[in-house]
């Protein structure tokens, strides 16, 4: 029972506080880059959280590292590489495009293309069927069938 209680307690982070550091930046551009970078890097040992929002010790260490690197003139790419070297691809919320992620990045567009082709085919097919007979007559027949179906429903 004690175990159950403990495991339930551990489920939620012990504190949900905004992680606020009050770093002084040399210029607003660096501050904006800092905010962007820390929002795109995942905290390696938290629940699903970026290092900007998490207040776990490791996230605050990593924030400090990003701050120091940016202030020392590192490029965004250098900061990202630094983190990946140490913590793996896992820390990237924006997965890199490579063989492993092709499906992820391009799959949706492939699916969209397939979907649009289907729309084209369907509307074309339907139109060919439509042009097989005079439009008015088909309409009437349609309506009749619809009515019949509705009638069936009412009867049962």
């Amino acid at each position, binding site marked *: 029972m004690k175990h159950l209680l403990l495991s339930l307690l551990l489920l939620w982070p012990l504190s949900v506080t905004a992680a606020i550091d009050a770093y002084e930046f040399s210029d607003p551009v660096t501050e904006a880059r800092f905010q962007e970078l820390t929002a795109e890097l995942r905290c*390696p*040992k938290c629940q699903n959280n970026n290092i900007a929002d998490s207040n776990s*010790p490791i996230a605050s*260490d*990593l924030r400090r590292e990003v701050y120091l690197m940016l202030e020392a003139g590192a490029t965004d790419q250098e900061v990202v590489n630094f983190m990946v*070297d*140490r*913590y*793996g691809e896992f820390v990237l919320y924006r997965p890199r495009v490579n063989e492993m992620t092709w499906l992820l990045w391009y799959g949706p567009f492939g699916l969209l293309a397939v979907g649009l082709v289907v729309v084209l085919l369907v509307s074309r097919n339907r139109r060919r069927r439509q042009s097989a007979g005079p439009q008015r007559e088909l309409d009437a027949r349609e309506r009749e069938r619809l009515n019949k179906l509705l009638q069936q429903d009412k009867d049962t």
Partner: protein
Amino acid sequence: MRRVLLFLPLAIFLGLGFFLWRGLSIDPTELPSARLNQPFPAFELASLTEPDRILTEQDLKGAPALVNVWATWCPTCKEEHAYLNQLAREGVTIYGINYKDEPVKARAWLDRYLDPYVASVVDEEGRLGLDLGVYGAPETYVIDADGVIRYRHVGAVDARVWQDLKAVMDAIATGDRS
């Protein structure tokens, strides 16, 4: 053709279901070290027990060994400490990284609970920990004779975990011989 297409949603769902089922036995929080199969990161840090002595990654080379990241503020480290002592008595080489800790407290801790480490380095700032990709103590690494990282375990070392670590160390030993 249309008949086959109608089975497509079912097929997709079954594929998805398979992955979800596999997912139940995977721990999403378990992370392999990004430093796996890379040389131990370079460092120059003072020894905990002999503060005047500077240790580097060269000092870890020579034989397969464990490198244990620990701190006095970490309750799990205390849990595993007795087992590390036992391993040390059995002849396992263990190096320690005293991670983001106060050396005075750390030395007192080793006096009190015994010192399983061949040597401990002081990583007060956590720089070495960062280079290693440590995200919380305790962590234990297996390195080979050339100082290459071969395995990482996150969390306490106990008899069960030691089986895994030992298997890696044995594999290194056989690999070296052949």
